[in-house]
């Protein structure tokens, strides 16, 4: 009986046993009368019931070059309504010193009109010629201002190592962008290999920001634990466990793109800030005979609002320059600056604001709606729904049961084939036992990392068990190459040979699955990850132990039967 002892002293067996026990603890299976079986396993939406939405972030990234003189013309001429003539331009000179551009025009120019471009000084020259110098500016800032104006959207400069990239936060095709830049004597920069630097989508920072905002949003609506994940480069996936598709869409549609604009002249409005400048939103209150919704702006937002109010003249004449709030391009609120706010803005930015809605009950409802909208409006980019899904809870339950039954009967079928082939229970039992432990270990890892098991993951478990059994057959046949168990020395080298084959096969398997993990194909990612985990556990933990156990069992069997005849 020294065999048994040595078996439990074997380090591989000890590790295997510990991991197996650990997995069972992690899964934590239990049975509560009346409630049925319980466990720590998380199931995906297709097994649990619920719905999911996949959204795409609209935007474009491109490296852009343009003629700085034409850029200034392109920005300034529509603003002042007259042609300009560039007289001095050192924007294209290298070095980062203070750069400036000077132009003359026949129209009158006020410095505040051009303030967004840099430091502006306006000089009245002889006759009706005005000379304007814009200093502390750069070509990048001009391109940003030009695109932002032309596309009526936010444009962000990001500077990765490869060069300055402009992130345009709205859907724009390469052709549209090209035409716009051609107008200012520029083009979309080409990569070294001749391909365009234009790319649909947004930067990963913007994508992650959008995801974070959505996450906060959904949680603030009282929907705890709704996972918002990024998938691939431009997609965001939201899982709504236990919520049906119609409800999910309703919830998701609430967070929209919130924007404050200011009336410039007539019906024209100008962008002031987006919802991301709003730090906090208070509870509507009734004071000074009006309903108010308080909200707070961050530093940037407060300063921008002050600057725009000065530029547009809203401070002098609030009644002609309403502040308008938009949610997804729809106007939801509009009011002039109060006189007190206007005079305060002259001194400095205001951080705490209140939007007043009126005196009656409707005003109260309006104030409450505004509160939600102010909170909901935080997405920096437009999003479109590109995919969705829904599984009723009852159907998910059916799928779960069926998948379990399919798995168990599959295992029985495999066992039958193995028994038919070897006709020896001392091979059958460890083989099926190893496979079964592999399943438990995969489930253990899954519950430990909080993985959601969906149908695709179950397919992954089946895939790794399939190769697992294949590998156990290789070990068995290698060990029994001449039909009986060889002496220990030969046995070791045989096991070595078997593992040479298994490791080769396993590594091709893992390599074949890895593109799916990296590319993030929605549900297929789960399939690939579970397969890789399974193959890994199998090769590192379970199959070495099978080698040890089968040797012991066959050895015992042989000394009892006095040899094998086959």
């Amino acid at each position, binding site marked *: 009986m020294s065999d048994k002892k040595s078996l439990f002293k074997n380090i591989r067996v000890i590790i295997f046993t510990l991991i197996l026990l650990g997995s069972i603890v992690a899964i934590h299976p239990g049975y509560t009368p009346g409630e049925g079986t319980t466990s720590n396993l998380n199931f995906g939406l297709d097994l649990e019931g619920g719905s999911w939405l996949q959204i795409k972030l609209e935007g474009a990234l491109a490296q852009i070059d343009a003629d700085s003189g034409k850029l200034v013309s392109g920005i300034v001429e529509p603003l002042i309504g007259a042609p300009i003539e560039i007289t001095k331009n050192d924007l294209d000179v290298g070095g980062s010193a203070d750069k400036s551009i000077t132009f003359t025009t026949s129209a009158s120019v006020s410095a505040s009109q051009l303030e967004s471009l840099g430091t502006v000084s306006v000089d009245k020259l002889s006759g009706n010629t005005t000379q304007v110098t814009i200093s502390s500016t750069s070509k990048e800032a001009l391109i940003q201002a030009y695109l932002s104006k032309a596309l009526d959207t936010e444009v962000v400069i990001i500077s990765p190592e490869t060069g300055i990239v402009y992130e345009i936060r709205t859907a724009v095709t390469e052709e549209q962008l090209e035409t716009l830049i051609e107008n200012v004597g520029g083009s979309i920069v080409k990569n070294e290999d001749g391909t365009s630097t234009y790319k649909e989508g947004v930067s990963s920072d913007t994508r992650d920001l959008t995801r974070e905002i959505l996450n906060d949003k959904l949680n603030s609506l009282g929907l705890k634990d709704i996972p918002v994940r990024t998938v691939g480069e431009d997609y965001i996936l939201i899982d709504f466990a236990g919520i049906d598709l119609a409800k999910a869409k309703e919830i998701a549609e609430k967070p929209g793109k919130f924007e404050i604009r200011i009336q410039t002249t007539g019906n024209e409005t100008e962008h002031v800030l987006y919802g991301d400048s709003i730090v906090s939103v208070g509870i509507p209150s009734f004071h000074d005979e009006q309903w108010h919704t308080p909200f707070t702006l961050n530093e940037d937002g407060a300063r921008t609002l002050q600057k725009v109010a000065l530029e547009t003249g809203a401070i002098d004449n609030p009644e002609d320059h309403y502040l308008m709030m938009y949610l997804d391009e729809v106007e939801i609120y509009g009011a002039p600056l109060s006189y007190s706010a206007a005079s305060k803005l002259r001194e400095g930015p205001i951080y705490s604001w209140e939007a007043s809605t009126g005196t009656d009950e409707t005003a109260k409802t309006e104030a409450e709606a505004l509160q939600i909208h102010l909170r909901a409006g935080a997405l920096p980019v437009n999003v479109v729904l590109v995919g969705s899904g829904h599984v009723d809870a009852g159907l998910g339950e059916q799928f779960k049961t*069926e998948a379990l039954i399919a798995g168990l*009967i599959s295992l029985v079928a495999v066992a039958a084939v193995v028994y038919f082939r070897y006709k020896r229970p001392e091979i059958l039992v460890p083989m099926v036992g190893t496979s079964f432990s592999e399943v438990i270990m995969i489930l253990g890892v899954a519950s430990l990392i909080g993985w959601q098991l969906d149908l695709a993951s179950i397919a992954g478990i089946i895939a790794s068990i*399939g190769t697992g059994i294949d590998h156990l057959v290789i070990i068995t046949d290698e060990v029994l190459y001449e039909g009986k168990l060889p002496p220990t020395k030969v046995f070791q080298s045989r096991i070595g040979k078997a593992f040479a084959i298994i490791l*080769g096969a396993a590594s091709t398997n893992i390599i*074949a699955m890895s593109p799916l993990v990296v590319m993030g*194909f929605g549900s*297929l990612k789960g399939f690939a990850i579970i397969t890789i985990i399974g193959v890994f556990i199998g090769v590192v933990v379970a199959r070495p132990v099978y080698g040890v156990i089968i040797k012991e069992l066959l050895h015992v069997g042989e000394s009892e039967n006095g040899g094998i005849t086959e």
Partner: protein
Amino acid sequence: MATGLTELLDNFVKNHNDRQLLAIPLAVLAVSLVVLLVSFVSSGSPVILGMEFQGGTQISVETTDSSAVLEEMYSSYPLNDVRQAGSRVIMQFGIMDDEQQGQLEKDVMSRYSNVQIQQVGPIYGKDLQAQAIKALIISFIGMAIVVFLLFRTFVPSFAVILSAFSDIVIAAAFMRVVGVELSLGTLAALLMLIGYSVDSDILLTNRILKRRGPVEEKVSRAMHTGITMTTTTLAALVVMYIISTFSYLLIPSFSQITLLSQISIVLIAGLFADILNTWLLNTGILRWYVMKPEFRGRYNR
């Protein structure tokens, strides 16, 4: 079953020369390639693209209504196909705008129980198509590199890679002929096939190149192991296919699990192709290679 098949195959391999062995799998591969090519020329895609890759909506509901009733009821929507599967009816819709989509979903959910909805927008579908092709190619190249690193000789590595390629092509042609769509599930199956396929090929090549003994004996021993491997996997897959596809016939409360059903049928086809490719194609090439006069029987003793 396994033993019978092994003996049959073993005798076939022993009694035919290398050229004869190659003829059958290469003919099947050629026919499969023609199927895919004809499909590509006539429809623009070698396989039938499922909803996930084309964009559209698939709704499946539990109902006692016949498919004709549902077809009539939802005729105002772009309904492409209605299929009955046991106690369920599966409807395929074309691309709709958000409003129409929402209306349809609300209507279906208020009327039926155990609803399953999947919707993919055309942009995302296009994206998935491109990604699917990329994934298949990268997986395949990755596998090829590992195989080359394992054997470090051209002909044996090439034989393994050719067999894997043939497995996938034959499985894809099978999908086209039988009418199984390319979905995320069947794409996963094709990728899984890369893994399953090389298992037995690596076993065979390893045994023949790195083991002593007569080639004939090494082939037949490898075949014993290899066929056992494939049959165990096939057994599991057949069970999975039957349960995920037909269990509702026995237990009316059960439903088809399309994902598992599709994965298993494609893998079953692929594994049958794998038996052919490993034990005729790969064996044929490898046997010709190791018996080449310049090796002077190095691999045959």
